[in-house]
């Protein structure tokens, strides 16, 4: 009987995936959000953190993302087909019932740490760990996160190198359009990458 009715149990994806921009803090996630927004992708944000010296184009954040571990996930119901920023440490709190296309920003770790140091200074936060320790912890975090992401049945991941992106934005913007499977405006996307904001590079590219 099961064979006779094979095919009837299939569950097609009812909702479009949620686009997630992720990565370590200061890996270029805000820039990626801005690019996708310019391309025409609706963003899921609030105004909890506005543009400042560290992110002159804005943070593109949603405060509720930080509270997913407390069960605040109701906002995801309206996020299908939109883009939201979720830093790498919070990805594991994304609920399983949705599907996600994750654009994961990767950047030279020294650049990330340099940028974080500056940002901590601007926020008058003290450095509780030295760079060597925190680099090891970030590396451990990434080496646990990537295999986990690879095994998520509801997450498709595109790794984007910030450094490569700044070197060849057009190629990578085209890849983004292909990955999101949404007809974004390439010309407007290309207007965003700003080499002037690429301030913490380890070497000239």
């Amino acid at each position, binding site marked *: 009987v*099961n*064979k006779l*009715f*094979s*095919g*009837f*149990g*299939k*569950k097609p994806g009812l909702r479009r995936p949620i686009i997630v921009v992720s990565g370590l*803090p*200061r890996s270029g996630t805000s820039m990626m959000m801005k690019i996708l927004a310019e391309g025409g992708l609706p963003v899921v944000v609030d105004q909890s*953190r506005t543009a400042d010296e560290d992110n002159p184009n804005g943070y593109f954040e949603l405060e509720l993302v*930080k509270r997913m571990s407390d069960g605040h996930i109701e906002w995801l119901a309206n996020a299908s087909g939109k883009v939201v920023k979720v*830093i790498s*440490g*919070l*990805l*594991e709190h994304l609920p399983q019932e949705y599907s996600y296309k994750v654009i994961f920003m990767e950047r030279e770790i020294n650049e990330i740490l340099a940028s*974080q140091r500056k*940002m*901590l200074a601007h*926020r008058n*936060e*003290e450095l*509780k*760990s030295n760079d060597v*320790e*925190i680099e*090891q*912890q*970030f590396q*451990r*975090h990434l*080496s*646990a*996160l*990537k*295999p*986990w*992401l*690879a*095994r998520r*049945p509801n997450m498709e*991941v595109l*790794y984007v190198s910030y450094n490569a992106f700044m070197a060849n934005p057009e190629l990578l913007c085209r890849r983004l359009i292909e990955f999101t499977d949404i007809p974004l405006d390439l010309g407007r996307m290309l207007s965003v990458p700003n080499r002037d904001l690429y301030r913490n590079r380890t070497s000239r590219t």
Partner: protein
Amino acid sequence: MKTLILGFDSFDAAVFEEMAGKNQLPNFEKFIQQSGYSRLEVCSPPQTEVSWTSIATGADPGGHGIFDFVHRDPVTYTPYVSILPMRKSALGEQFVPPYTAKTLFEEAADLGYPATALWWPAMFPARPDVPVNTLPGLGTPDIRGQLGVGALFSTEDETRKKTRLTKLVSAGKDRFTAALEGPQTQSRSGPQTISLPIIVDVIDGKTARLFVDKQQVDLRLGEWSDIVELRFKAGMLFNVHAITRFIATSLGRVVRLYCLPLQIHPLHSTWHYASSNSFSKKLWKEVGPYLTLGWPQDTTGLEEGCISDDQFLDLCQKIFDRRIQILSFLLNDFREGVLASIFDDLDRIQHMFFHDRMDVVQGWYKRLDQFVGQVNKRLETWSSKYRYLILSDHGFSDFRNKVHLNRWLLENDFLRMQNGGNDLGSVDWTNTRAYAVGLNSIYLNVSGREGQGIVQADELEGLLTSIREKLLGWKDASGDSVIQRIRPKHEVYSGPYTRFGPDLVVGYASGYRASADTGLGKIPAISMEPNTDHWGADHCMDSDVVPGVIFANRDLSDFGTISFRDIPFLAIGKHLDQSNLKPPSQAAGEGQKELEERLKGLGYL
């Protein structure tokens, strides 16, 4: 969903990587270029039936219950073949499925997709209640319900250890007769063997004619016959059908004829051979006859000198070719679902040639590479997205020394014998604390669990530690460690069946393996002996010694270590067992707090 899985039993990572380094396997190498190759972490112990079941279920033996090729009845200490369990019912003794854990095939079927598993081990008997098409692999018995040995007919008085010997009796010039023994039936006077008379006419030194069951089979010296269908009359209305192949191996002064184990006829099986019946019949009729025994490559015939190396290899080739034809036939109509096929000739060839004929072994890797090239070409025409996996259940290693583990346990005062005897029936259980049954298993003689158990609960940990430490310190005459790793079951297994598993899982170092005697609980006179058998290589060692491989048409580089637990996810996009998937915050280990402090400082938490 559209997934093709090719299982290459025993495809060894080190052999592959060495040959790939010399550009000898171009079709496999393409997967490397696309980051679609990885070594595969296989389950413990790395035995064929255990490993393929773990791959199909994504669970370790604690989750499916097959721990070793041989299990034991704890009450009687009697060993039995784990993949061929029987249960007594009103209808007599019946084979029952060796496990019931959900496979990726069942999951795919539950999702509404057609699923097919060809020659997958431990899938006999078929389960008509499960909507998965199967032709079973390892574990499928012969028509006697056993794992199967062939029959040798000879004009000479000969002896063999396992093979059944029948004298060819002269019945005229160049004519010989004998009886081919078939299945047993129960009669009032007890079990009775049904036989078929055979007549062999030797035409010349290179050809002969065999008459059996009203059929004429023309034989050429050293060449296998086609598959012959036989019918044994078991009563007025009941026949037992069988299939086999014959080969004349000597037609000179001595006449020798060899017959493969009598195998289940898929069109007339008295057991649930395949699922569905119409599926196996369709393949038989539209593709051609195929051997059905779980281990059709007759290594015993080769080991015992009944057939030559070349005849054995020719048989492997024939089996391989027919399986390719069957898979190819099914690929013609494969639109969606899961289609998986195991090819196990390489395993048998490595058992027999890995230690001294690497040319033969490497030749087979090249054959598999050509086959993969053909499949790859075919897949280029597939338009929709699909998953494509090629994997092995374990690799291979030398088997230079046979370890008689029960003798070692005896020598180290964990086991005591009564006077005489060399098996578990002669053990003094009142003074025995541990014993070995199976190829990688040690059991403690636990009070309340074993029939004559003496080890109390508070002694378990100490005893496990003591055996572990002593075994890890065991060196052979040249100073090499015999054991690479030995772990208690709770360190290796998780899942509801864990408590039924062996108390210690023994991982032999490369070059060592438990003897077949150990597998059956026997206690020979010495603890180790050199292996001089034709069967000179194996994989029943520590799982780290014999990693498997996985090739995929997707990037595998982000997975880190890929294990058997990942296969259902890679095949059908779903984990069947999530118990080993830890979120990154738990998997990353120490430093998580400092990381959170940093993120809070930056305003991201």
